[in-house]
């Protein structure tokens, strides 16, 4: 391919190992993260066929989905969870793969620790058996989720069979108003393009508002690309990216660093590069966002009222909205700020980084969680927990009545025992509000960390701008 290229085109072309006559591509995978939920069957496959991991040092293994967020010195109570976590370690030892024990301080959610350890690098290809692998695109890595068969394929061959993705660019002009965060931005984007708007695409996020985001904020945006149907999100690496990566344990060392940065500077899309799909919005128009329904595109500004399904022209969508309101036990046309909540969850691969902890703490400081609410804060990694404690954020949270927990995926998907009971309602900083996602019969409202803290204090969904 000649002519101007996108960031995606450049990474894709550089990783092509083979192109078959029918167009099927074999791409090289630089980085592979493995967790306990989607890997056991892949290792069985290797054993059954007498295969070995091709390049162990490209791999990083850690348990996150099933780990308790309570005292780690105790054994894992749930037997199935314990077996999965132990099996991950056994597989790491048997195949001699880099592994982080869940009791180590470096442990955390796969999508938090990849960038944190410098394992994720600009321009690399990175996969993991988890759809939120799109997170790593914030550093300019082509990162996407894969299934267990593909985990086995990458282990055995360090490659994947793929078809090229289409390029989509979402340009966000203007600056985010005070009190608004990357979470509000990505929810607004999903509201605009829908849950299938990015299917078959990689989304490159561009424009002033994206440039102004921290790396953590860019991770939040790229994380939820999958909620817009896109397999991957990307942000062009810039000086902020290089500053973030420099000096991390697995990043290129002095002597190689300058050479690496020189290569990474070639990555941003060329002027005039073509995108199959373009979307533009202005950050200044965005209000704090909250989901009201059962998928992330059912999202509105906090000042809005719940929609009336009768206003929907399309019968499929009307049916979907009716179903969502019934499941969520909400009335059409009622105010979002009248929705009372039972639990608040601040955490997940979307919003558990230090900046998220700070944003929530800023709202919590000197205030109290409402009596009717149980609120938990789950940092994304042991290192984030440590840093937050150095900054005194844990004190702010616990004095306000929040529960300060150990790192992991926790109530985002309720596998480790942290979950909603049937009928309970949460304000959650996670990424999916599907029926039963946080526990059977549970109801989820997705919000930013600051909005979650505000909801915890008021006991109902609230506009964070009233707190600042």
């Amino acid at each position, binding site marked *: 391919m000649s002519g101007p290229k996108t960031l995606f085109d450049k990474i894709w072309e550089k990783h092509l190992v*083979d192109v*078959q006559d*029918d167009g*099927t591509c074999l791409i*090289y995978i630089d980085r592979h993260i493995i967790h306990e*939920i*989607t890997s*056991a*069957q892949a290792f069985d*496959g290797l054993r059954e*066929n007498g295969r070995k991991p091709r390049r162990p040092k*490209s791999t990083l293994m850690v348990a996150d*989905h*099933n780990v308790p967020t309570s005292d780690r010195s105790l054994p894992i109570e749930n037997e*199935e*969870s314990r*077996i*999965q976590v132990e*099996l991950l370690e056994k597989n790491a030892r048997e195949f001699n793969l880099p592994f982080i024990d869940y009791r180590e301080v470096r442990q955390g959610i796969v999508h938090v620790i990849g960038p944190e350890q410098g394992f994720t*690098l600009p321009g*690399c290809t990175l996969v993991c*058996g*988890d*759809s939120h*692998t799109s997170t790593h695109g914030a550093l300019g890595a082509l990162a*996407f*989720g894969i*299934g*267990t*068969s*593909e985990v*086995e394929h990458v282990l*055995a*061959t*360090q*490659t994947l*069979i793929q078809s090229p993705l289409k390029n989509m660019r979402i340009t966000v002009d203007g600056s985010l108003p005070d009190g608004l965060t990357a979470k509000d931005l990505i929810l607004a984007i999903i509201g605009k393009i829908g849950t*299938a708007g990015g*299917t078959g695409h990689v989304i490159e996020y561009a424009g002033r508002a994206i440039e102004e985001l921290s790396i953590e904020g860019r991770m939040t945006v790229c994380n939820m690309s*999958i909620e817009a*149907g896109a*397999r991957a999100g990307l942000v062009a690496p810039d000086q902020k990216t290089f500053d973030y990566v420099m000096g991390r344990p697995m*990043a290129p*060392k002095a002597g*190689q660093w300058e050479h690496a940065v020189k290569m990474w500077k070639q990555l941003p899309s060329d002027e005039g590069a073509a995108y199959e799909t373009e979307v533009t919005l202005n950050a200044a128009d965005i209000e704090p966002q909250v989901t009201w329904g059962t*998928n992330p595109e059912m999202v509105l500004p906090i000042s809005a009222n719940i929609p009336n399904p009768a206003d929907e022209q399309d019968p*499929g969508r009307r*049916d*979907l909205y009716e*179903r969502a309101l019934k499941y969520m036990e909400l009335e059409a046309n009622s105010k979002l700020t009248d929705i009372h909540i039972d639990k608040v969850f601040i955490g997940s691969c979307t919003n558990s980084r230090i900046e998220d902890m700070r944003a929530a703490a800023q709202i919590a400081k000197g205030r109290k969680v409402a009596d009717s609410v149980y609120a938990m804060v789950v940092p994304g990694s042991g290192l984030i927990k440590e840093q937050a404690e150095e900054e005194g954020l844990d004190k702010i949270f616990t004095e306000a009545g929040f529960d300060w927990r150990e790192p992991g995926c926790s109530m985002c*998907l*309720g*596998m480790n025992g942290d979950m909603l009971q*049937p009928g309970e309602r949460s304000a959650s900083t996670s990424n*999916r509000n*599907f*029926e*039963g*996602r946080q526990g*059977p019969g549970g109801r989820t409202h997705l919000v930013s960390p600051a909005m979650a803290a505000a909801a915890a204090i008021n006991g109902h969904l609230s506009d964070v701008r009233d707190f600042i």
Partner: protein
Amino acid sequence: MEKFTKLDGVAAPMPMINCDTDRIIPARFLKTIKKTGLGVNLFNDVRYNEDGSEKPDFVLNKGPYREAKFLVAGENFGCGSSREHAPWALMDFGIKCVIAPSFADIFYNNSFKNGVLLITLPQEQIDRLMDDAEKGANARMAVDLESQEITRPDGETIPFDIDPHRKHCLLNGLDDIGLTMQKDEKISTYEGARNTAEPWL
């Protein structure tokens, strides 16, 4: 992987759009370390009451649909989590073919790697197949992968498109890994060049 050549049986209608993989198999069933045995929990939370009894209104709890081999589904089927447990659960239940206007990308890849055939058709044709699927015991369809044709209950055939590589793998029950390992030399050449150019990787 088992070969997929032809399939015939009952088709169940599932018109809802954006059917996500949490719905297909909720997260708490991902604690298994096997690929089998998930069929009983397929669509668990919409299929069973809290006490474990069946919800009579759910399609797969109704007479002939208990034996369904096809699903006719709404757009964006399989969105959300990358869990391969979703096609494992479908397969374990006995559903080996899903026909919908569109599928989410990761679910699409995962299904083909497990011998589940996904067929994408325009909404207009889906509407007709959905009507067929409403016919209970008479909702019998057939698919022939070689000739790329679906046969409706009334005998009419509908052609469909499929990626030639995926078709080849399904028809022959081929393991992708084995195929890729035949390209070992190309992978080694690539790795050699990359280790020189970007030794930090």
